[in-house]
């Protein structure tokens, strides 16, 4: 029941990530326990991340250094956490925590995939039955999901899924920096966010990414996470 994922800088897969449930904390600093950032310029005990509800808070345990939390998809959006500040709330779904160390900038990523969004049906009071997949339609993962679903939404229900290269070509006009890595990263993130259960055949055979893409698209179509009338986001980009 985790709500926050901490991804160390050199982490290349789920094994190195820290998954925090609401109420759980993770310390970081030059030494363990917790997340070790081996650099002489980092305080022995530099800070602490606490998952709180669907967001997280940051405690800056250093004496002199201000930490910056950037929103990598936020066009420069960031917050500063002063030394000694306890439990500062961070509102971003994706964050990069930047720690100055000597003349270097170190850091790691923190994801908060359980943010809530108002659903179509939730605008009024009462106790609505709600879809439990809140998605932020202004995020890049939504673009990737829309591009993956597009052929099946527009035409054939059994159309082949676009390849990663086709997704790149389709999205490049509105997302110039798109790359194979970023598309794959977003596919992996969507699987975490949508709580996708790995299908058994994927666990057994080698076709990891393809199986994941297929499961994502069938889940998205089954629950109308992307609708045909939303596909113009692919041409126009997310509306602010």
């Amino acid at each position, binding site marked *: 029941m*985790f709500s926050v994922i901490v991804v160390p800088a050199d982490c290349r897969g789920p094994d190195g990530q820290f998954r925090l449930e609401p109420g759980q904390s993770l310390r970081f600093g030059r030494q363990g326990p917790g997340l070790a950032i081996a650099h002489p310029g980092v305080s022995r005990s530099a800070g602490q991340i606490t998952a709180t509800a669907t967001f997280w808070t940051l405690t800056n345990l250093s004496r002199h250094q201000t930490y910056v939390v950037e929103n990598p998809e936020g066009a420069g959006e960031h917050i500063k956490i002063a030394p000694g500040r306890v439990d500062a709330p961070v509102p971003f779904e994706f964050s990069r925590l930047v720690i100055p160390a000597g003349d270097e900038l170190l850091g790691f990523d923190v994801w908060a995939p359980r943010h809530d969004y108002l659903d179509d049906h939730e605008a009024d009071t009462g106790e609505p039955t709600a879809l439990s997949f809140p998605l932020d339609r202004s995020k890049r993962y939504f673009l990737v999901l829309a591009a993956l679903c597009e052929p099946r939404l527009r035409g054939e229900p059994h159309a082949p899924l676009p390849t990663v290269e086709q997704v790149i070509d389709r999205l490049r006009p509105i997302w110039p920096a798109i790359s194979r890595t970023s598309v794959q990263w977003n596919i992996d993130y969507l699987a975490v966010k*949508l709580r996708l259960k790995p299908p*058994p055949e994927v666990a057994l055979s080698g076709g990891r990414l393809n199986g994941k893409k297929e499961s994502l698209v069938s889940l998205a179509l089954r629950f109308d996470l992307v609708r045909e009338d939303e596909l113009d986001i692919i041409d126009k980009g997310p509306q602010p």
Partner: protein
Amino acid sequence: MSEEGPRPFTVQVSRGYRVGRWEVREPLATGAFGSVYEARRVGPPEPGDPDDLPERAALKFLPTGTRTPRQLRHLKDLAHRELTLHRKLSRPRLIRMYEAVTVDDPGNPALDGATVLVLERAEGSLDQLVERSAPGPVPGAPALLAQICEGLTQLHHAGWVHGDLKPANVLLMPDGGVRLGDFNLAAEMEGTHAYSPAFSTPDYTPPELLWSEVGERGQLIRPTADIWAFGTVAHLLLTGALPLPGASRAARRETLLRYARGDEELRLSPELPDAWREIIADCLSRTHEERAEHSGTALLRRVEAAAGTEPAPKLPRLRPRRKPGKILSTALAAVVVASIGYGVSTLTDTGSGDAGKGKRVDPASYGASELRTDKGIPVEYRKLIVDSAHDCSESAVTPALIAALLKVESNFDPNLSDPAKDEYGIARWTPRVLRYYLPDAQRPKTGNPRPPFPPDVSIPAVGRYLCAIAPQLWTTLPGDRRVLVAAAYLTSFAKVNNAGGVPPKQRPITDRLARYLKEYTPAASS
């Protein structure tokens, strides 16, 4: 908080609109997926109609048309679930469906193709009653709860999970009774669980479903989810407040998570009478496993006792009782056999306890009083088989039963691998099923366990699985209880209940199994 007027109806239908022989009257209620209108019958009854086809009914419109401007695919799935349940199941405490009509009106794309269920007309729903009552307990709450619990038991016994029990889905009938309705999220069980679309009503959702994994078929749901929701409804009706405190839904979710983690205890309202407090605390147990102990008829009897109502009629008649006396005596015989078996296993327990004090345990004769030593059961699995059976207090789950199952499933082959059927190991476990019968320490955090599944993993999981399904079988089923449990293991307990015994298709395999069961059981304990 200011009211912004009534909630807009999901499906707009004007007064006087005709659907088949029904004419739409007043709007009654709306939900996220469909809207309900009152209707009047304008056509005469037709051949094949039920005798009691009413003059007035409730029409539930589910916008499943293909030309609706924003086609919502999942609505088809939801409408299908509700239709299937109504077609398969009619029980006294479930709202009744008279017929289903598809709207044929090309001139009206918003309605064309909509599925319309013609349902029993209710007076209102429980949430309206809660809203209109003064703060505090809802008048008549205990009797209402007994009826809601009766409805749930009827649903579970028929092999279905409701998936969205809440006051809005409990309907009040003109005679003062209640019926369960709104089966959009209902799911028919396969074995001990079902798949439901990943929708939920947060305040009535058990912790394990809050952020649960979702597979291609939806999320896995079990009857214990309805039990949790029942505990929540009971607390609401008896005290006027939800059991978990918090000013907003998000705050209550935090309380739920803290409670589920064990950081917080349940603090039920002090005004609850003791009997109800125990019932609600059991229904709101933290885990599925704890709640599973309180499901079914036993819960209904406690609720009825607490409510002071007459016990509901026995559930449900399995099939016409042609020879009631005979069936009864067979069932009785099965109970007697089972209790003898239980007595023996208790004795053996004492035996193995002595062994633990220092006597040598001989694997070849381990549990010999319950499992024969001369019938080819591999010695290396005897202890696993006997101990797994003893971990379960269900008398039908015996070492001989587990051994016979392993014999017919794999002929005791620990290396069996059948990727075509997705079954592996000595017990032919399917990874996605095995996951739920592993102890927490062995269960992967995410995803399914991966084969190989060695015997020390597979066999205890068989014991846990049998132990979970055995209490779900009706006690009135005729025949050897152990064979019935095995049949439920091979299909599902709902199929066995509904077939009134071993389903015909399973007979060849259960006949083989019964032979081994007899062969493996020592004369003294059979």
